[in-house]
């Protein structure tokens, strides 16, 4: 089987990008992708196909057909291009499609990634649009929201493992600390700094992040989850160039090999699953990836995981086999998942601090693997990072994708 390498990657800053359309964001990510190829690349001559993931651009900005927009505006026409969609893991599906196409020999180089422009709608409208990733008839019509579904997971998790909301706050506190060192993160501030900034308007000040997190400013979204347990609404795009072993060395001397990939599913509705505090999609995707890479969870040096809500960082770490069952929150409290811990999680700030333009998130995770494994992650660079894992979830983790990369 042919080896597959990342030979370039680019990502916009995530956040509220008021003026830019999704197309502008894709082109911005493409510019960095082009520059990131060490020996240069000519997109319109060298790229054999384009796969772009996005979840709901039709509702967010009345534009579809983004695969073709990318092929057209990057002058890759008439080569193949199409959209991939598995909710918040849509760009991981694009990366999987590119990986399979190159591995099959149908292409030497694939451009993969994703885009989402979300801030054009209000928070209530975004909540409504995202809810279509759940079961519209048997979950959403009862008034459940995505924060609500993850709140149910948190309730079940707290009950099962006797852990608390207070302990879980170690997760967003760590995410914001990492995000402070990521120039592309939506929020580049510690939780305490953000709390004091928000408090200023209300004449409130805090000495400790927990004082802010327990205050009325950090309001409840869906009990027990409060505002800082939820990732923000974001705009952004990210792209990755995948190449076969036959051509990768033409473009770079320091490629990053993707040694394992996987995808999996669970029941669409949370209530139908055998376990509320675990996703069979994440487990299946990661076991496929470990098997393909010939690795065990203990071989992973760091991981990008889908912390759309703080509880899911704990659940993901456990499903991936990086932390024993029921110890995900404890691992964050003990700082095992911090930049200098034994298994750093989300060095880029995660979805919580970096942002979550849903269709771009999976490619954004691959971008962080690329940066860390090439030693280009700046202030947040991990020492001795050789093997990284990315785990991207769709919906309430009804779908999942995993990638293992090594330098």
């Amino acid at each position: 089987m042919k080896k597959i390498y990342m030979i370039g990657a680019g990502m916009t800053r995530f956040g509220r990008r008021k003026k830019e359309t999704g197309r502008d964001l894709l082109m911005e990510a493409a510019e960095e992708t082009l520059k990131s190829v060490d020996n240069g690349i000519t997109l319109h001559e060298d790229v054999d196909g384009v796969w772009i993931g996005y979840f709901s651009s039709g509702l967010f900005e009345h534009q579809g057909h983004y695969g073709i927009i990318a092929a057209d505006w990057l002058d890759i026409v008439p080569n193949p291009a199409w959209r991939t969609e598995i909710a918040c893991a849509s760009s991981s599906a694009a990366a999987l499609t590119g990986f399979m196409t190159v591995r099959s020999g149908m292409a030497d180089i694939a451009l993969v990634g994703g885009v989402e422009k979300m801030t054009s709608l209000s928070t209530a409208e975004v909540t409504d649009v995202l809810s279509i990733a759940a079961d519209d008839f048997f979950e959403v019509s009862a008034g459940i929201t995505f924060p609500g579904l993850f709140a149910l997971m948190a309730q079940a998790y707290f009950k099962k493992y006797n852990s608390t909301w207070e302990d879980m706050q170690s997760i967003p506190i760590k995410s914001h600390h990492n995000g402070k060192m990521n120039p592309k993160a939506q929020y580049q501030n510690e939780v305490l700094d953000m709390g004091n900034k928000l408090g200023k308007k209300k004449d409130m000040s805090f000495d400790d992040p927990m004082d802010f997190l327990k205050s009325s400013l950090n309001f409840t979204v869906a009990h027990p989850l409060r505002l800082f347990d939820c990732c923000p609404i974001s705009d952004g795009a990210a792209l990755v160039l995948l190449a076969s072993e036959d051509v990768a060395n033409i473009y770079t001397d320091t490629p990053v090999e993707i040694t394992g990939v996987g995808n999996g599913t669970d029941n669409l509705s949370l209530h139908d699953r055998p376990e509320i505090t675990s996703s069979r999609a994440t487990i299946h995707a990661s076991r496929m990836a470990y098997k393909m890479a010939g690795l065990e969870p203990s071989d992973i040096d760091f991981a990008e995981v889908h912390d759309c809500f703080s509880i899911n960082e704990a659940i993901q770490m456990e499903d991936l086999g990086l932390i024993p069952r029921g110890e995900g929150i404890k691992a964050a409290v003990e700082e095992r998942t911090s930049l200098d811990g034994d298994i750093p999680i989300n060095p880029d700030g995660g979805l919580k601090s970096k942002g979550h333009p849903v269709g771009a998130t999976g490619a954004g995770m691959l971008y962080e693997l690329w940066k860390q494994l090439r030693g280009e992650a700046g202030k947040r660079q991990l020492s001795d990072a050789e093997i990284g894992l990315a785990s991207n979830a769709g919906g309430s983790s009804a779908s999942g994708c995993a990638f293992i990369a090594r330098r």
Partner: protein
Amino acid sequence: MLVEVPLVAVPLLHEGDIMEEKPIIDDIFKHIENGKLHGVKCICCGHMMFPPRKFCSHCGSSEVKEIELTGKGTVDIYTVIHVAPPFMKDCSPYMVGIVELDEGPRITGRLLMDNEEMVESGMRVALEPLKKSDKNVIAFKKEIKQ
């Protein structure tokens, strides 16, 4: 010419069982409007399901039969939604939970108690017809023992 029929295990069926039309999603909500919850039972393995699936979610058989469920069950977990989508704004905050029906299936529904203090895990509930923006909604109220 004689055609040899391979011998396969065929479960015994009552005449007409699988000839009935299987319900579509619209039928389910029409029943809910009348305060009734219809599911299906797998003829092969006995597994009970709500909503009525076309294939058994336990053994994969397509031989399922529509049945009426009691609509009664127990609250497993619940949440209180404070940030609501546009169609639910006027109700916020409101409660939604996962209810385990007495027949086995688990189901997400609105919990129509006046406030959060009146809901707890393990409490008994019963289906209550509810309409929201002309749509039938799966909802439960506290079970009244007769």
